[in-house]
């Protein structure tokens, strides 16, 4: 059988890409998500006021956590969370690996409690 290293590499890459990309969502059983009638989203968050955080944070070798403050703003009037979704991506893992954990990609979506 002919063995093509490039296709093998691409296959491996797409397997890594697909398997490292996932989301975990936490949702309150109580309470109601803040609605947004003006939103034109068509996904799980249809009609909800979603806040998206897509950023890179710096974490030094010793600190193991990072606190992100949820502030009251238009899309989060109550300042209380109803749904939060954390997404892990291949790019994020790669960034983590090549910076030896100093830089972390943070991709979060959250919806606050209806005020």
């Amino acid at each position: 059988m002919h063995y093509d290293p490039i296709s093998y590499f691409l296959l491996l890459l797409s397997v890594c890409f697909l398997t490292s990309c996932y989301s975990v969502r936490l949702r309150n059983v109580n309470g109601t998500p803040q609605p947004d009638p003006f939103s034109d989203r068509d996904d799980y968050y249809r009609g909800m006021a979603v806040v998206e955080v897509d950023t890179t944070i710096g974490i030094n070798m010793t600190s193991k956590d990072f606190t992100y403050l949820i502030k009251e703003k238009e899309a989060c009037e109550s300042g209380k969370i109803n749904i939060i979704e954390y997404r892990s991506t291949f790019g994020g893992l790669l960034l983590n690996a090549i910076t030896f954990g100093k830089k972390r990609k943070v991709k979060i979506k959250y919806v606050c409690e209806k005020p």
Partner: protein
Amino acid sequence: MANTKSKLLTEWDTLHNNGPFPLKLLYQTKLEGEREMPKKLDRYNDVALEIQRLIRESHHAGEGFRAYGSAWSMNTIASHKDRMHFNGFMNLSMPIRAADCHPNNTYDPTNLFLFECGNTIKEVSETLAENGKSLKTTGASSGQTLAGCVSTGVHGSALDSGSVQDYVVGLNLIIGPNPNDIVYLEPKSKPALSDAFIQTLNSRVIRFQAKPMHKERAIGLIIIKYLSIHTLMSRIVW
């Protein structure tokens, strides 16, 4: 002061995409913040003035104005080709005190609550649970608004109790832009609220002769601040 935002649109759709249906302008009104206006009744009356302003604005523009809740009705009923108003943020609720009941009130005051139109069934159930109460029946999902349920006669019925509209013993309606256009309706034979309390809602009281109910329903009061739907009154069956 309650705050309204609007968005120019060409179409609007229900949650389950039964449309799209034509629409020109979509409004949403948020209540004044608790910190700026701590008393619920003040916020309740304040947002009523804002809704009246929007009615006036639509009237002057020669356009229609229709309230909607969660857009869960799977047809055109909630849509209007001109202007629509999303009510979800109008979700105040409070128990009624015995002192605020009518002298001839026959309901147990602890069963009486005031709910604003945009409360979802889930919010209603949570408020009731905090007070050791519950709705007698409920449907499968609970994101519908109280006003949406009452005006379509839905959400849970059993052999011995009806759906949401059957819990209502009084209605607070905004029927137009003028000071006299906020009315509180309840049957003459079963008054629930005192005139003094109704006055604090800046409302004109209308006690009407209701058709006798085929069955006595003991469950408590839900009073709803409704938006101006002139046809709504004809849809209320006591």
